[in-house]
């Protein structure tokens, strides 16, 4: 068994040492965000300021990174969350992860603070701390252009340098946007991490694996989501679907539909602006949009960016969104949190509470605003602190659209109540992916599990959260999990009586899902139809990984991150949504268009094996082989 090798880097002393991962940890936590959460629990004391010198950031990979399995360039960065004070984990599809493994390490554990701007370079197993004073101040794109082309790169832009609370990291044109880890890098004076090497990435059963990869790629190409819808329209294809289901946040979540939504839809983008589709390295899905800004081809906006710089600001200028997406990327800002914070500021202005120079319907000055946010100039420095901070200073907590401090994504939970539960419980804060992405089964996918009904939502949320968590841990893209939705439903179409019946009937499947979760030890099989990642992990690592143990891995990751949050002072009370979503019906005539957290949350805790305060029970942790983390 090839065990992962990590390196520990202390920027204060300049000391680096290798940090081998034990077989027990490898078998239990595997890699990615699961292992990172466990290491953060082990290696850091509680209550640290994320910007303190002692705080630790972990950049790590999953076992599938760089093996050639489809959609497996995703690597993870975890640290303490700047916005929530809990766990931060952010995921990126750039080439850095693959290169880090080729350079000889599966992960880097970085602590301390460099005296001046530095670049951590990993080459052929050797780690060097290099001066990066000349790169400081450059945007993320220019920084990478200045570095040798063949290196894998992970860099921050001005946003991270100036400690913007939602600053992200860039690797190529890919962003690890969420949770403000770019600012943690900035606080440590890390401008860039680079890697290069030619080490062969170990695979335990290479021949079987190679055969499996071919089958998996064929399967992805045949499935409607991964072989047709995502390559044609990208995630942008969700705009019209969300709008039709009243799940497209409009004017800071005041409404769920926008009359000009089609102007910023994936279809319009594909018909009028798209030059071609592309993708992360290793990915046959290729959901990336390529578009032009002047005579330069750049990465196009994702669904969340379209929704948030469009309808959620009461605007529909597609060219402006393309431009703002690019500006956020090179400044190193998370488009979701940046746009959501600005939308909140727009509502503050609309209500006459505070004028930051932004108003609904006008995105013409946002490029300048974003630049000022990234450099913390003038009043925009306040916008750089995120919507939770703003609401604490100026009021408006009821409509500051975040959970735990992290801004929610572009899915209106009042028309997708399972998604609402997901936002509230997601470990890193209001994140659709950490939240289980129930919106896909409620309001933006082929199936529509009654979006207002709370039945079965807690069970499905737990199941999906665990699945997504495990996929992420493996090093795979979550989109590769979309083949979980049976192809037959796409063949029938969303309006076919059978599809509609299944959506309606699914609200009675709660006990079935709970039974499935209880039967995990018996699920000792792998199938392409459910979790192809489990089989890939088994062949690559030699760990006996099956559908059941794969779900256990996700559950373990979820609980480890939860324990980190609890240790840092978050409680069950933080599993909450702004009152706009829980108390104010989206549609005045339909009283049920709210998220009934009072109904959803207790069942969610029960399904998770947590007590009524949202704390994992001892027996739950014991079942997950992490009893050593239990504290009375």
């Amino acid at each position: 068994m090839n065990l992962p090798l990590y390196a520990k880097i202390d920027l204060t002393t300049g000391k680096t040492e290798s940090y081998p991962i034990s077989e027990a940890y490898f078998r239990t936590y595997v890699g990615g965000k699961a292992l990172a959460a466990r290491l953060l629990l082990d290696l850091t004391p509680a209550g640290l300021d994320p910007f303190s010198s002692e705080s630790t950031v972990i950049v790590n990979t999953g076992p599938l990174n760089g093996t050639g399995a489809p959609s497996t360039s995703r690597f993870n960065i975890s640290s303490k969350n700047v916005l929530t004070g809990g766990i931060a984990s952010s995921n990126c599809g750039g080439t850095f992860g693959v290169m880090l493994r080729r350079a000889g390490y599966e992960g880097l554990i970085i602590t301390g603070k460099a005296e001046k701007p530095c670049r951590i370079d990993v080459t052929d197993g050797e780690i060097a701390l290099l001066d990066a004073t000349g790169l400081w101040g450059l945007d993320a794109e220019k920084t990478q252009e200045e570095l040798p082309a063949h290196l894998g790169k992970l860099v921050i832009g001005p946003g991270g340098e100036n400690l913007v609370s939602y600053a992200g990291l860039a690797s190529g044109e890919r962003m690890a946007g969420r949770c403000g880890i770019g600012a943690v890098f900035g606080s440590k004076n890390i401008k860039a991490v680079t890697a290069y090497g030619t080490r062969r990435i170990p695979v335990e059963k290479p021949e079987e694996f190679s055969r499996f990869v071919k089958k998996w790629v064929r399967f992805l190409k045949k499935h409607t989501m991964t072989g047709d819808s995502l390559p044609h329209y990208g995630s942008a294809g969700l705009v019209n679907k969300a709008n039709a289901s009243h799940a497209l946040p409009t004017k800071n979540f005041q409404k769920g539909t926008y009359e000009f939504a089609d102007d910023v839809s994936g279809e319009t983008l594909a018909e009028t602006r798209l030059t071609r589709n592309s993708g992360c390295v290793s990915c046959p899905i290729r959901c990336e949009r390529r578009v032009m800004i002047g005579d330069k081809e750049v990465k196009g906006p994702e669904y969340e960016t379209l929704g948030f710089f469009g309808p959620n600001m009461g605007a529909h200028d597609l060219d402006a969104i393309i431009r703002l997406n690019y500006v956020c990327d090179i400044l190193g800002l998370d488009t979701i949190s940046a746009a959501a914070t600005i939308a909140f500021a727009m509502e503050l202005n609309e209500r006459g509470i505070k004028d930051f120079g932004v108003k609904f319907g006008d995105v013409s000055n946002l490029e300048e605003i974003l630049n000022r946010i990234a450099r913390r100039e003038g009043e925009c420095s306040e916008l750089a602190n995120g919507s939770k901070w703003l609401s604490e200073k100026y009021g408006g907590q009821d409509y500051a659209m975040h959970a735990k401090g992290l801004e929610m994504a572009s899915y209106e939970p009042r028309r997708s109540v399972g998604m609402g539960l997901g936002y509230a419980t997601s470990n890193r804060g209001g994140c659709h992916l950490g939240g289980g992405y129930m919106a896909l089964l409620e309001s933006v996918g082929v199936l529509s599990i009654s979006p207002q009904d709370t039945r079965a939502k807690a069970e499905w949320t737990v199941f999906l959260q665990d699945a997504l968590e495990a996929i992420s841990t493996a090093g795979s893209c979550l989109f590769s999990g979309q083949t979980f939705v049976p192809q037959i439903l796409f063949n029938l179409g969303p309006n076919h009586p059978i599809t509609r019946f299944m959506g309606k009937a699914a609200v009675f499947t709660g006990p079935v899902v709970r039974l499935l979760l209880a039967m995990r030890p018996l699920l000792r099989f792998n199938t392409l139809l459910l979790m192809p990642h489990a089989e890939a992990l088994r062949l690559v690592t030699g760990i006996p990984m099956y559908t059941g143990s794969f779900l256990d891995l996700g559950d373990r990751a979820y609980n480890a991150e939860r324990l980190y949050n609890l240790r840092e002072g978050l409680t069950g009370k933080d599993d909450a949504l702004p009152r706009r979503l829980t108390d104010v019906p989206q549609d005045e005539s339909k009283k049920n268009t709210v998220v009934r957290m009072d109904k959803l949350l207790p069942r969610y805790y029960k399904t998770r094996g947590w007590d009524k305060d949202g704390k994992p029970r001892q027996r739950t942790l014991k079942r997950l082989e992490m009893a050593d983390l239990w504290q009375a």
Partner: protein
Amino acid sequence: MAYFITDACTGCTVCAKLCPVCAVSGERGQRHVINEKRCVECGVCANACSQEGITDGEGRVLRKKSRAQWPKPVIKKEECSACQMCVHICTAGAISISLPDTRGSLNVFAEIREPKKCVGCGLCADACPLGIITMEVPAADVTKGGVSS
């Protein structure tokens, strides 16, 4: 075992420029060195060395080959998933994903867009998860090189 540069080296820098993994270093006019940790034994340096100053892992001196005799990747484009593993590993920048014929067409594949840049290292073939890239010496050139088929 990595390749090795013998004292026949005149420091012409050709191998350093062509090495697809930047494993060769040295000053012009000085004997060059191969970083053995980095070397992937692709043979590009030996194919190009006019001094025949490179030995393989077993110490055999390798012969220079004319550029026409360097192997070239052949991609089965109809089976390609355009995953870009080959594009990413090709430091020479010879491979790209083809451009769609019409807007929105998904029928794209990896192609040798810049054949002159290809050094024949075979890293693309090695990286291809589907195993649909093979390294072949161009047929016409085989005849020219005087090797019977």
